[in-house]
Every structure is written in C-alpha cells, then in structure tokens.
C-alpha cells in the first residue's frame, strides 16, 4: 500500500494506491508499488519468506515525504521516500526521487527483514553488516527484475539517483566499492573494498554506509565465483545466514564464519559454493580457516537436526 505524504511530515498521509489498484501515473507512487512487489516476490518465490515479518505483514510505503528531502529510510514499520532536492534550482540538484532505483526499495524493505531476523545493531560492524544485507538483497531485487546473471549485473546501488549534475554512476558499487562517484561537489565515494582500508569514524553510527563496502564486495566475489543468477546460491546462503545464524552484535568475521557454515550445510563441505564463500571473504581481507570451521559443526549439526 502506498501513501502520499503530499510533501508534509504527517504519516502515513493519503492512501494513493491500495493493493491491486491500477497504476496512478505518479512516478513515485507507482515505483514504490512495483518495487515493493518485486521485493516481496524475491523473498516469497526464492526464499519462501512471506513479507517482512514472514507472517504476511502489509508493506506500507510513504512517498513525497517532506520537501527537499533527499533520502529514504525504514522507520521500523514503514518505508519512507523523499523526492530528492527538487526544492533547489535545477542546475544545483544532485538527487532525483528516491524511488527511482528499484534496489533502494529492496534495500529499505530488507532493513525490515533484518529487524525481524538477525536484529543487527545499527552501529559499527554489525551496523555495516545491516547496511550490507540491505544492499545485497536490494541488488538481487534489481538483478532478478532484469533477469541478469552475476556477470551481467552492474552491482550499483542507487543507479539513476544522482541527477546529471553529478559525476557518478550510483551511490555505491558492490563490485568496486569506492568508485561509484567522484564529483567536484560531493567528493569521492568513500567506501573501502578491503579490511586494510576499514574506516574508523564516529559519524554515521560508526560509518555503517562506508564500511558496508567490505561485506558488499565479499558477496559480489562469492556471486561472481558461483556464476549464474546471484539470488540462487549466493543469495540463498546470505539469506539463511541472516535468518538463522546471525546475531545482533556479530562482526564481519563472525558473519563470514556463519556464511561459510551455511554454505556447507546447503551445498556440502568443500563444495564449490563453500569454497567460493571462503574466497569471497578472503578477497576483502577476512581469512577463514577451513579446518577449524569444518570442525565447529557439532552445534550446527544439532541446529540442522543432523545426527
């Protein structure tokens, strides 16, 4: 269901498009509707998840939030989208409306899924993981909508969000973190692609949107190594890890170990999928030790109901 805040702050605002209604002709309303639908479908058809809470929760989106609101967020219950910086003269505008990229919609909705599952604390490394899971599933929504393989996908987050006044292809690049934009006004994309470049900062809850480049690049590496459609294997591993294994305060290394364990459970020890997970994390400077991790299985076997 899509509500229109009519450039004010009252939530949810006027009902603009209910479930099953025809397109309205308003770009933000229809993009939010279609994007939420594509995200629901990815979770339902591929991961057998029924909405954000897995209980069929209504997906509520609010568009046209405030004036000059160059942002989108998940408020714990709903997705909220601004129109960009439409209040500035056209030659000064940097952002288009925030529904313009389908992966932003998948990103916001995934914050809801994370809230109901791993509950990753929105700070430091757990916060950067929270951000990264949102980018991962946001990108998978886009890739599935376009039926692109890992090789064909651009792995950009927020493609088309910048206006033509900005030198940038998108907000983040999962394939090459740190290269999404380089602009005289905005500066350069600050994301690291490797642990050696991890950014220590107190801003943005400990750089959650900066250091997410590291797990983003790890996921890209896994998906690329496995080939084909990224949502089928790499996405499945990441989803099961988010749903069943990750805990609120987990850091990158713990997440790496858990995706490695899930890969073994789903596809077998030393399977190409498990080795791809190891390699993906290794490429960003997070080394998993095969022997140790292979031997950790007692609790995990119990968790899976194995003897």
């Amino acid at each position, binding site marked *: 269901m899509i509500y229109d805040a009519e450039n004010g702050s009252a939530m949810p605002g006027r009902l603009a498009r209910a479930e099953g209604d025809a397109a309205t002709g308003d770009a933000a309303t229809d993009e939010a509707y279609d994007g939420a639908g594509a995200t629901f479908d990815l979770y339902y058809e591929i991961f057998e998840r029924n909405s954000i809470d897995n209980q069929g929760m209504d997906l509520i989106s609010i568009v046209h939030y*405030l004036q000059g609101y*160059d942002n989108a967020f998940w*408020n714990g219950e709903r997705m909220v989208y601004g129109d960009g910086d439409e209040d*500035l003269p056209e030659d000064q505008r940097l952002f288009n409306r925030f529904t313009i990229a389908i992966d932003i919609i998948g990103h*916001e909705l995934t*914050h809801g899924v994370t809230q109901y599952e791993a509950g990753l604390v929105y*700070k430091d490394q757990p916060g950067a993981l929270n951000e990264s899971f949102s980018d991962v599933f946001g990108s998978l929504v886009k890739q599935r909508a376009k039926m692109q393989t890992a090789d064909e996908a651009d792995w950009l987050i927020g493609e088309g969000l910048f206006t033509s006044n900005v030198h940038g292809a998108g907000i983040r690049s999962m394939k090459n973190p740190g290269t999404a934009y380089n602009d005289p006004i905005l500066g350069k994309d600050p994301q690291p692609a490797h642990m050696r470049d991890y950014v220590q900062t107190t801003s943005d809850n400990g750089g959650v949107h900066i250091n997410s480049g590291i797990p983003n690049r790890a996921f890209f590496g896994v998906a690329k190594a496995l080939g084909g459609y990224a949502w089928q294997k790499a996405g499945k591993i990441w989803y099961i890890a988010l749903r069943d294994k990750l805990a609120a305060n987990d850091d990158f290394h713990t997440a790496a170990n858990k995706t490695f364990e899930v890969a073994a459970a789903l596809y077998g020890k030393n399977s190409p999928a498990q080795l791809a997970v190891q390699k993906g994390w290794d490429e960003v400077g997070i080394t998993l030790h095969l022997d140790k991790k292979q031997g950790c299985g007692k609790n995990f076997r119990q968790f899976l109901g194995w003897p």
Partner: protein
Amino acid sequence: MWKKFSAVFGLALACNLINMQDQFQLHFERSGGFAAIMVQVAVRSDSLDAKEAHKVASMIENCQFFDGEIPESKPSPDQFYYVIRVLYRGQEQEVSFTDAAMPERYRPLVHYLSLKAREKK
C-alpha cells in the same frame, strides 16, 4: 550542572527572547541517510539581512531550543542525524536527533538549515 546552565540560559531567552542587538550563531550538521553524504552550514545573524535574522531568531525560539524536551534518538536505518548548535551571548548549546525523534516544533528550523546547507554545496 548542565541542567542548571540550560535552565538559566533558557530563562534568559524566555524572558528576552533573542535580543537582536546581540548576535547569534548557528551551526548545523546533517549526517547519515541512505546516501550518507554529510552536509553542514554555519549561519551568523550579522551575515543575514534584518528580516531573515528575525525569522531565524523566531524559529529558534519556537523550537524551545534551550529548555524543550527532546526524545532520545536510537540509531535507525538510513535516517538522518541532525546536530544543531546555537551560540548566543557567549554561551553555547547543542541538540541532536534522528528523523524519527525530531520534535515537530523543530521542523521549520531544520528545513531552513537543510536548505541552506544543500544550497551551499
């Protein structure tokens, strides 16, 4: 101690509001958000024309900047985090909040400062 300072400072403002003979300064910073591109701006009342300076002073007063309650902000996905600092009569006070925690009375001031900060880019 801080509470006492705030109370005294707040009382001064409540009694006098902002006296336009005295200059004031504002510093605004907005971080976080989906794109995580920080913007900031500093505004000095003596750099504004008289009408705009009065408008800003009224917005600060309408926020109850110095004595109003502000709910605690929890880190929340992709929400902006705002920090506003006001320097007046040699004393300084700062407030901060996320989008969700922003009191409604702050909206005009935040809108004004956000626009200033984005125009500056």
